Each structure stands twice: as C-alpha cells, then as structure tokens.
C-alpha cells in the first residue's frame, strides 16, 4: 500500500467535487464517495480511518448527512498516534454535538487524554471539551480541568480557563470550585492566560453572586493595577496591534471591571481614576483604539455615577459620530441610545451631530440615528427637531421614507404644542410622503381639524393649495377632499383669515374642479373616490349655483363597475334631483367629534360603547319632544341595530356620518314647524316606496322573531345611506298599520304636551333576563292618557363576586315598536349584588292590543379588564302592554 495515498485521495475527492458544474453532479460525486467511505468503515481498516474522517468533515461542511461516521471519531480518539487523535477530536467537534448519546462514550478517552504526558494532546482534549461539553461530561471531568488550571505550561492553563468557563455554565453548582484557581490567574503575566482568566472570572461573577462578591473584594485593586500597567506599558511587539499594547486584554479587563462596579459605589470609586486615564489617553484614529474607548465608555455608563466621567464618556461618543469610519459611527449611535436614559442632557448637546447621521449613506446608521432622535424629542425641542426631520423628508431616498414618515407622525402627534403647528406639520408630511402615511394618522388629523373650529378656514385653504401641488399623494387628497366638502364655503369667502396667510381667490367652480379631479384621477383608489362623491354631495348644498354641474358629475358614476361607487352615485343623484328640501339638513356641517372618545376607541375600548352613547344622547335631548318622536326613535333604532364595522377607516367615517344624521334630526326639531315634520316623513316614504317590499299588516309572533333575526345577522358595515333606507322601511311599516296609527301620529302633533297624572295602572315586574352571572329585572308603568307607551325601569344585579366595569346595555325591537333608551345610572356593577345599575326606557307599541312587547338585548362589561358579552331575547312581557 502506498503510504502517501491518504492525502492524495482526499485531494482527489476535493478536486472532483470542485469540478462539478451542477448541484446534481455534486450530489452524485458525494453519494459515490460516501458509499466508498461506508465500505471502508465496514472493513474496519485502521489505516483508512484518518482519511475517511477527513473526507467526512469536508462532506459535512457541504451540508450532507455524515452521522454514520460518528463512531470513527471515537475510534480515532482512542488511537495512540497524534495525527489520529487530532483528526478524531476535530471530527468530534464537527460531527457531534452535546446532545448525542455517542458523546458519553468519549468521556473516558477525554479523561485519559487530559492526563496525557504530551501537552498538545492535553490541549486537544481541552479544546474538544470546551466546545461541546454536556452537563454530564462537565461534572465528570471538572476535577481534571481544575487541576490543569495550575499546569506548568501557559498554553494549557489558558485552554483550561476557557474550558472551565463552559463547565460552570453547564453546571453552575461547580462555580465555587473554580473561584480560587480563577482569581489566581488574574495575577499572571502571560497575556493569553490573563485574557482567558479574566473571561473565566467574568463568567463566574455572572453565575454566582458569592463569586462576584469574592472577586470584587479580592481582585478589584489588582485588576485596576493590571489595567494601569497595560495602559502605560512600553512597546511590546508580541501583543502590539496598530501601536496599542494588547487592546483585547484592555477590553476584557474593562468588561470585568464593569461587572464588578455595577451597583457598587466603593468598587466604582476605586476604578474611576483608571477609567478617566484610559478615556483621555487613547487616540481615536484607529479602529482598535476606538474599540478600547467604546468598552471604556460602556464601563463608565454602567458603574456607579460619576458626573464628570459620564460627560467625558458621552463626549467620546459624540466624537464617534463624526468619525469617517461607518463602524465607529454605528457603535456610537448604539451606545448613545443607551446613554440617553442615564444622562439625556449630555446627549442633547450632540443633537446636531446626531441629526447629521440621518443623512448618512449607510441605511443602518440612518435607522439608528432616527431612533435616537425620537428618544431625544421633548416639549422643548420638538419644533426644531421636527423641522429638521421634515426638511430631510424632502430629500431622503424612498427606502428610508416609510420609517421617517412614521416617526415624524408619531413625534408630532405625541408632542404637539398647539393645533395650528400640528396641522402645518401634518400637511407638510402629507405633501411630501402622503403615500407612506398610515390610515390612523390621517384619521387622527381629521379629528383634530374638526375640533379646531377657528382653524377650519386656514386648514381648508392650506389643503386646497397643497392639493394643487401634490395631487399624487393619496392621503393628502383624501384629507383635502374631506375638508373641502365640509368647509368649501369657508374656502371661497376667506373667513377666519390668519395674519400669516395670504388671501386666495377661489371660485365655487374651482372648488368643484379639484374634487372632480380627485374623483376622476385614475390613480385614486376606491376610498378616495367614495370620499370625493360625498364631498360633491355636500358641495351641492353649499354651492347651489353648481348643483346641476355636480349632479352631472355624480351621474357619470352611475355606470361605474364598482358597486360602492355606483350605489353612492344613484342615491346622491336622487337626493339632489328630488329632495332639495331635506338636502341642507342631510349635509349640515359635521359636528365636532369628541377627541377623547376617538382616542379611547383607538386605544381599543369596546366599539359598542360609542353606539350606546349616541343613542343615549339622542334620547336624553329629545325625550319629551313628542312631535319628532317617530324620527328620533327611528334613529335610535338604527344606532342600536348597526354592527361595529370591522375596518378602521369605515369605523371612523361611519362614526362621523352617524352623528351627522342625529344632528340633522335635532336641527329639524329646532327650526321647522310640525307641518314640515310631516313633509319630512312623507318624503322619506316616497324614497322608500321605490325600493321596499310590501309587508302584510297582519304579523304573527313568529314573523316578529323572523324580523329580528335577519337584522342581527348583518355582517357588512352599513354605509351612511343605508340609514336612510332603514328610515324609509320603518316609516313605511308604520303607515301600513292603517288608520289608527296615523290618527295616533296626528294626535301626537296636537298642541300642548299631556299633563302628568297619577299612575292608576299597575303591571307586575318580571325577571327579563337571568344568567349565572347577571339578573335583569323590568318594572313597568303607564299613564292613562297614553296606553301605547310603556315606561320600563331596568334594574341590573351582579350575581358573581367580580366587579363589572364599563357596563353597557343595548336593546333592539321590531318595527312595530319604538324604543327610547335613557342613560344608565352608572357603568360599574358592584359584586355580589351590592348595589345595582338602573336604566329607564320608553317603548311605544303601534300594535297595542294586538301584539305583545318583544325585545332583543345585548349586555357588555369588563371583568378585570377582560371584555365579556351576554345576549338574549325577552319574550315574557306582560300582556296588554
């Protein structure tokens, strides 16, 4: 046998693999080679073991399975020759890991080799143990390793030190055995032993508080002295790196001092001088010098407070930011982000340099700088910083814009000192990067604008101008269209002009032009086009002279392929063409949305709370206004019936428009005589008759339930115009009742409310709803002059030992009933029946004497912050109500 065959054959295999052109070829070569290796292993020829394992290691690196060679590692390790042992240990570390059961078999070999007379074999064993030791091996071999910490040769001592570090990580209980040998290493002169000894002590201090205390007490002074000697040492060629004496040892010593000094004033005090010396002496024009400075800064920031050192450290980081090397700037920003929690004032002094990093060509540095700027923002500097960020937004590259836009919006909304500044900044962002702005951001902007009535004119004019210049920014277009629809009349008359503004001359036609552009631009998406249609409807009322033109624009969407736009177009056209008399009330200016409610909802409160609030508000303000009772009740019913829309955009728009309808009703109440009220009702009937199916006037109880069920099963969000449709349906149902209901309506318009008389009718109370957690009791009363209307007092009792918070009650009734719900007495239900919540409601039965009351209810509350709901249907009302 040729004695040189082994290395040649390995080289041949490598050449063959490298010669492959495709992955399939490589797989074929590897498969063939593995087959040969398996055959050779089966022959159990010791001469080939070394070569086989060398090949397997290469194959393993390429990603192919090599588990069948694991036992060969063990056999080689047990061989007497050095080359075999070396290859065996290399294979062990690569082909096996600590989980393999095979690993247990090697423990005995390791033990023998740790006691071998050849120190290089001892080194091989320590290396393997340090890399793949399991907890069992660590326990078995710890005594050997501990002994080797005292070995005569420094190369063995340093390997034993790192091996010990792994052992104590695997078995922390063994830490105490290593404390004294480890601290002895700290007095060594050999740099390799020193650096590994420091690392072992650092691990000991992390694992064991006793070890930490011991090292702190016994070694801090020695470490400080070692670092001082190192920092002041003359040239030492062996460990010189770019002119620094062993920077790696500097760094490890500083790291250990950090561990010792954290939360310990005395230890911190003893190292202050050397930290100051290192921080001031090191030159920062080399990477490795900066590595030492970087470690020194981290140590200063972690040990007990010394104001002067802290400022020195932060100033070093400030210099890092100006360094031309990307890596130095990167770590400087990282460290400043941590430093800002310790001394924000000192970091603020470097704000200009930090802002400069925003313009870095390196994306990761820009990202870090942006995060740091966001941390530095406060009430004092928000205007200056935002100005810088917005200016940079104009020139930043597309990849960075999304991040930058999100951060600017976050800063502006969080720290805004005044509304006009907020609106200005948001308009700048929308103009520059509107396509990166998230929905909740522009929704919030609209809420703020609606709340700033003195700024409506300023805002709509600014948006009009911005739209002219930045029509490609989708969210800018949406906000502009919404504001123009709401405040278009202010736009043309320059009302509310501020000192800082220049007058603009805008005609009604110009205003309609921009909305038409938004509607017809091919880049606009569905939401934008839908909002444009709504804005046009509003403008048709604010600009009567343009009404016909607007109608023509709207009609063009009748044939739109998107059903949403088609439906809006048809409905809006009907309003403009046939119902001019109710249009002003329909598109009255949107009432101010409660910012607190909006913020709370955005924070995740229960969506139904808003609906209940709306219903209660309507009931409260119109409770005794009988002439408009039918309309108010219809609105209340819709409010109760509407499911919470799932999309945030829809939710927002739905809320605004829903409130609008409520206000329209109130306006009608305030400004129109009773005859006009009748006109409104008849006009609604006119709309409804075109689309609503005719229902039989006679309905059984089962039909009543059927009417309730479809309503509850609605899934899709209701568009604003569906509210009109529901009004129509409800009104028509009322008229189908025949002459008697109509007489009642007319009677309702009679002058003078009925005077209150003693209640002479008594009805038994009922337990309307009861579950394992909640009981609802209804008490009834009527007044002699109005038998159709029943006053109900609902009383809720908590049957569990948990307090219910944010308690809300909602109810729905069929069309022949009208429900008016007053606010509840409270929204917290005490535990175990101590105290209760009451709520009054009024139900009018247009089928009095023919049908009993029926009601579907939903109750929502929170237990320990967790939302809970209960639903049910009440069928056990007393007869004759």
């Amino acid at each position: 046998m040729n004695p040189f065959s082994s290395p040649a054959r390995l080289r041949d295999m490598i050449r063959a693999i490298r010669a492959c052109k495709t992955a399939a070829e490589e797989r074929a070569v590897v498969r063939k080679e593995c087959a040969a290796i398996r055959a050779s292993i089966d022959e159990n020829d010791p001469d080939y073991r070394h070569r086989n394992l060398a090949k397997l290691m290469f194959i393993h690196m390429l990603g192919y399975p090599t588990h069948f060679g694991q036992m060969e590692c063990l056999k080689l390790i047990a061989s007497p020759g050095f080359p075999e042992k070396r290859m065996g240990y290399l294979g062990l570390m690569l082909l096996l890991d600590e989980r393999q059961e095979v690993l247990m078999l090697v423990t005995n070999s390791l033990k023998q080799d740790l006691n071998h007379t050849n120190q290089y074999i001892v080194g091989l064993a320590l290396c393997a143990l340090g890399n793949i030791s399991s907890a069992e091996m660590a326990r078995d071999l710890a005594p050997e390793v501990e002994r080797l910490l005292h070995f005569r040769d420094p190369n063995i001592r340093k390997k034993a030190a790192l091996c010990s570090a792994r052992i104590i990580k695997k078995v922390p209980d063994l830490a105490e055995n290593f404390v004294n040998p480890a601290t002895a290493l700290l007095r060594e002169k050999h740099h390799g032993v020193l650096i590994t000894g420091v690392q072992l002590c650092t691990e000991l201090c992390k694992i064991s508080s006793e070890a930490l205390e011991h090292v702190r007490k016994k070694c801090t002074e020695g470490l400080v002295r070692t670092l001082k000697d190192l920092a002041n040492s003359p040239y030492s060629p062996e460990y010189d790196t770019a002119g620094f004496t062993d920077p790696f040892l500097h760094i490890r010593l500083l790291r250990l001092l950090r561990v010792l000094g954290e939360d310990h004033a005395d230890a911190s005090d003893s190292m202050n001088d050397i930290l100051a010396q290192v921080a001031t002496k090191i030159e920062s024009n080399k990477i490795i010098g900066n590595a030492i400075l970087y470690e020194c800064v981290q140590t200063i920031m972690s040990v007990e407070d010394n104001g002067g050192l802290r400022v020195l450290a932060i100033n070093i980081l400030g210099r890092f930011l100006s360094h031309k090397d990307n890596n130095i700037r990167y770590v400087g920003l990282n460290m400043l982000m941590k430093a800002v929690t310790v001394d924000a004032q000192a970091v603020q002094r470097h704000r200009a340099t930090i802002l400069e990093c925003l313009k870095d060509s390196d994306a990761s540095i820009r990202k870090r700088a942006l995060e740091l700027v966001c941390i530095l923002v406060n009430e004092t500097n928000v205007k200056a910083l935002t100005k810088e960020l917005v200016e940079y937004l104009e020139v930043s590259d597309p990849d960075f814009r999304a991040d930058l836009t999100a951060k600017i919006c976050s800063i502006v909304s969080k720290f805004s000192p005044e509304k006009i500044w907020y609106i200005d900044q948001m308009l700048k962002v929308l103009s520059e990067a509107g396509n990166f702005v998230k929905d909740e951001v522009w929704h919030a902007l609209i809420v703020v604008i609606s709340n700033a009535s003195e700024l409506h004119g300023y805002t709509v004019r600014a948006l009009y101008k911005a739209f002219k210049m930045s029509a490609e920014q989708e969210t800018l277009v949406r906000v502009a269209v919404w504001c123009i629809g709401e405040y278009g009349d202010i736009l043309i008359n320059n009302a509310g002009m501020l000192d800082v503004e220049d007058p603009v001359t805008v005609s009604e036609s110009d205003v309609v032009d921009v909305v038409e552009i938004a509607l017809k631009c091919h880049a606009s998406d569905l939401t934008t086009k839908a909002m444009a249609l709504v804005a046009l409807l509003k403008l048709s009322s604010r600009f009567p002279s343009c009404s016909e033109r607007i109608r023509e624009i709207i009609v063009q969407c009748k044939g739109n392929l998107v059903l949403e736009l088609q439906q809006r177009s048809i409905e809006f056209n009907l309003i403009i063409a046939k119902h001019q008399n109710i249009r002003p009330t329909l598109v009255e200016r949107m009432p101010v949305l409660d910012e607190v409610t909006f913020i709370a909802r955005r924070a995740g409160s229960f969506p139904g709370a808003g609906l209940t609030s709306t219903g209660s508000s309507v009931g409260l303000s119109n409770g005794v206004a009988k002439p408009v009772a039918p309309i108010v009740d219809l609105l209340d019913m819709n409010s109760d019936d509407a499911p919470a829309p799932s999309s945030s955009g829809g939710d927002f728009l739905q809320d605004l428009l829903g409130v609008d309808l409520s206000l329209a009703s109130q306006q009608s109440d305030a400004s129109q005589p009773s005859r006009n009220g009748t006109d409104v009702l008849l006009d609604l009937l006119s709309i409804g008759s075109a689309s609503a199916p005719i229902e039989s006037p006679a309905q059984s109880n089962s039909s009543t339930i059927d009417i309730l069920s479809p309503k509850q099963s609605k899934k899709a969000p209701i568009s604003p115009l569906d509210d009109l449709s529901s009004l129509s349906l409800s009104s028509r149902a009322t008229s189908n009742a025949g002459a008697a209901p109509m007489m009642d309506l007319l009677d309702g318009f009679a002058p003078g409310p009925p005077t209150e008389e003693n209640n002479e009718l008594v009805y038994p109370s009922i337990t309307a709803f009861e579950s394992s957690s909640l009981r609802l009791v209804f008490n009834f009363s009527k007044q002699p002059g109005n038998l159709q209307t029943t006053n109900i007092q609902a009383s809720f009792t908590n049957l569990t030992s948990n307090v219910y918070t944010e308690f809300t009650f909602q109810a729905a009734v069929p069309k022949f009933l009208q429900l008016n719900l007053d606010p509840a007495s409270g929204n917290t239900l005490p535990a175990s029946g101590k105290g209760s919540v009451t709520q009054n409601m009024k139900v009018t039965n247009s089928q009095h004497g023919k049908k009993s009351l029926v009601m579907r209810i939903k109750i929502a509350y929170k237990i320990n912050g967790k939302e809970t709901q209960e639903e049910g249907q009440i069928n056990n009302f007393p007869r004759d109500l």
Partner: protein
Amino acid sequence: MIKAVLVLNTQGKPRLAKFYEFQSVEKQHDAIRNVFSVLCSRPEHVSNFVDAESFFGPDSRLVYKHFATLYFVFIFDSSENELAMLDLIQVLVETLDKCFRNVCELDIVFNYSKMHTILDEIILGGQVLETSSNEVMKAIEEISRLESASKAINLVPKSVSGWRSQ
C-alpha cells in the same frame, strides 16, 4: 460569547463553519444561506455590522470582513465588543496569511482541517483564547511538527520491509 464563525466565498459556498452554540445541522445550513443572502446584497462603504436575530435567535449580531473572494463572518452576542470582533477577524486573517504565505481560497479549501486547528487556537468554546498571531503560529508549528514526526515513525517499518525484499 461568539456563537459561530463562518468563512464563505462570494458564491455562497461555505469554506469553514464552526458553531459554538448548539444548532441542528438543518438550522446551521439555513443560517449559512441567510447570512450569505444578506452579505451578497450589501453595498460597499456601509458598516460591517448586521443584526442577526432573524437567523441566530435573540441577542445576535454579526460582523464581517470581505477579503478577495471570501467573507469572514463572526456571530456574537451582547457580551462582546463589536469593534474588537472586527479586529479579531483581522487576527485570524493575519494568522492564515502567515501559515499559508499569501493565503487564497484554494489554500483554505484544500487545508480546511488545518484551518480548524488554527481557529481552535484563537477561539475556544466561543471565547477568545489568544489574540497574538505569533503565539498562534508557535502552536501551529509545534502541532505540525508532531504530525510529521508521527508519520515519519510510521514510514520506517515499510522502508525496512522494502529494503529487505530487494
């Protein structure tokens, strides 16, 4: 601690892969592919630090240096100084240069077991063992001498046997 050391060529082929923290073989190779896909699209003149949490788990960062056809990559956690890691790569490369005299990719391909031995003299168990390339060279030379001596001893009987047959 250092979690892994990788040497990849500019086609993504691993030339050395050493993991100091347990990872299954599949995860190791996924990690190698992920590291390469990040590095090969990274432009010049950007920092040499990359967040490695997506392929090495929490508290992982990587630093790399690009020499000729090879990327040298260290993956480490927050107990290591990033700038020092960068310079430790330099120590490794300098040592390879001394061992192979103007090292190139082929030297590493055909001598990868020696590569592992060199790495084992610089890093042990994910911790820094030695930072002086001269000290590492001394150890490597001694190991090579031991290797040669063992082989020389093995050769003697065969030579005698050959001579006797003549």
